[in-house]
């Protein structure tokens, strides 16, 4: 592992640790309002200042980190599992089943990702309680993000299906689900792992875009997308540059994930 990747891993570990220890680390609760100090500049009491309603920005950033960094990988796991199942079945079975699954994947891949997200999000209840909005947002990311990985997994499963050890297992009487579970799926593990690493930064950025558009996690629960809405007011950012702290953290974390992502195979 190169020193740059080691550094990226260290940064991610530290940010994750801070997010997970939000209850102990954050100076205040994310929803606590200090009404005597709205839009306060950074001080000893509020290291990153406060927002328009007097909430401590640092506390919200730490809690928001927990929401974004725990749920984005959870959504990535869900997307990778769905991709593994559908792509694995498509590649293994071939024929009509493969055509149907790949056609559906083509459709999902063709549609602009953000357009697909906001369309499906709009069809779900919009005025849900904040905690439910967190689950809805990330569940959506997980369930809609399967198509790209499924195509890669399908192509790999197709190659594995034709390999000697699979033919030998088939000749020895192994077949159906047993062959898929014991011989095909375990060999898809490296591809699934790579797809997981690729999906995490994509989902973090998607949540940020959704939050920016007001279709992400609901107030007062903080997430990186929601926190980025604060920078919508350009004049306020010019006067209070510390409002850019969530963006800086987002760029650093997504950059670290990109560094840890295995390089793409361009021959496929």
């Amino acid at each position, binding site marked *: 592992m190169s020193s740059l990747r080691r550094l990226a891993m260290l940064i991610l570990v530290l940010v994750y640790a801070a997010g997970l220890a939000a209850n102990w680390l954050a100076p205040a609760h994310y929803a606590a309002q200090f009404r005597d100090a709205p839009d306060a500049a950074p001080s000893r009491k509020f290291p990153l200042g406060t927002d328009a309603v007097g909430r401590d920005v640092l506390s919200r950033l730490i809690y928001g980190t927990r929401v974004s960094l725990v749920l984005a990988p959870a959504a990535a796991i869900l997307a990778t599992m769905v991709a593994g199942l559908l792509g694995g079945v498509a590649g293994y079975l071939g024929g009509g089943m493969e055509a149907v699954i790949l056609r*559906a994947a083509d*459709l999902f891949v063709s549609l602009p990702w953000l*357009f697909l997200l906001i369309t499906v999000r709009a069809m779900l209840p919009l005025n849900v309680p904040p905690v439910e909005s967190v689950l809805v947002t990330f569940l959506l990311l997980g369930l809609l993000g399967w198509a790209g990985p499924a195509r890669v997994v399908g192509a790999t499963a197709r190659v594995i299906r034709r390999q000697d050890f699979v033919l030998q297992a088939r000749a020895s009487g192994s077949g159906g689900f047993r062959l898929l579970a014991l011989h095909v799926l375990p060999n898809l593990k490296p591809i699934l792992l790579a797809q997981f690493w690729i999906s995490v930064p994509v989902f973090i950025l998607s949540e940020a875009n959704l939050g920016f558009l007001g279709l992400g996690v609901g107030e007062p629960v903080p997430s990186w997308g929601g926190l980025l809405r604060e920078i919508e007011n350009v004049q306020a950012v010019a006067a209070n540059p510390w409002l850019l702290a969530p963006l800086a953290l987002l760029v650093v974390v997504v950059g670290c994930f990109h560094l840890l992502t295995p390089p793409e195979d361009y021959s496929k």
Partner: protein
Amino acid sequence: MVLHRLLRACVSTGLTILLGGLFAATLARFAPGFGVDEREFDPRRGVASLQDLRARRQAVGNIVSYYGGYLARMAQGDLGVSQSLGRPVAELLAERLPVTAKAAGAGLLLGWLPGLLLALATCRPSKTLDLAAGVLSALLLCLPSAVVALALLFAAPTGLRPSVAVGVAVAIVVFPRVLRFARGILGQVAVAPHVQMASAKGVGPYRILIAHILGPALPSLLALAGVSISVAFGAAIPVEVITDSPGIGQLAWQAALQRDVALLTSLGILVTTITVAANSLAGVVQDCLRQETA
């Protein structure tokens, strides 16, 4: 052979669009609030009138008949009426699509040109250029498109036209993706034996770049071009919202917030048609080029 491929691509595109429409119609059919008719609360309506309304609703309750009816109306140019804007959807799309198409087209051109040129430049061994290209693409890939649009508004001179801002923002979103993938594609071709042989035979660097690297990489670059259209349309949504540009990205956002199902369904089919057609076309040209090379 080309005609056969074109025909196959057309059938495949049509099927994907129909599937996209079915997906959009299914979402619309099962969205909360579907089938609620305010006319039922009108106290002036009698029992027979109410029964008639319910019977009509039941007729479109089945997803197949609902989608069938939608397609039949669409064939006649009737895409319904937008609930939130109170205007025919076809009229709205005709008005907004050119705005996004122009901005996205300009953005694609502005993103592709420097992206491809820089990727080509990195084919020649230069550590500094390689590092600069890597850092630049990695940094821009870490930014949400909404933030790119906002940064542009912040940095741009006052009075910048929204469509120009959208074009530049889309270019900033497309550029790092083109650079990253084009570098990968060209980098793989650059180390191929035929390039090394050409270099050993004394072929000039520009000729190697154009004839021996860019030529064989063209099919993969075309596939990337198809995908980048989808990226540009996706980026246009937050960018148009932030820059207040009246394109289909902003329309999609408004429709999503207002739960305007008719508008969202039609937008879904329109965007699917554009992106699938572009990808299919890229696929056909890619196949033809590969066949020619073989």
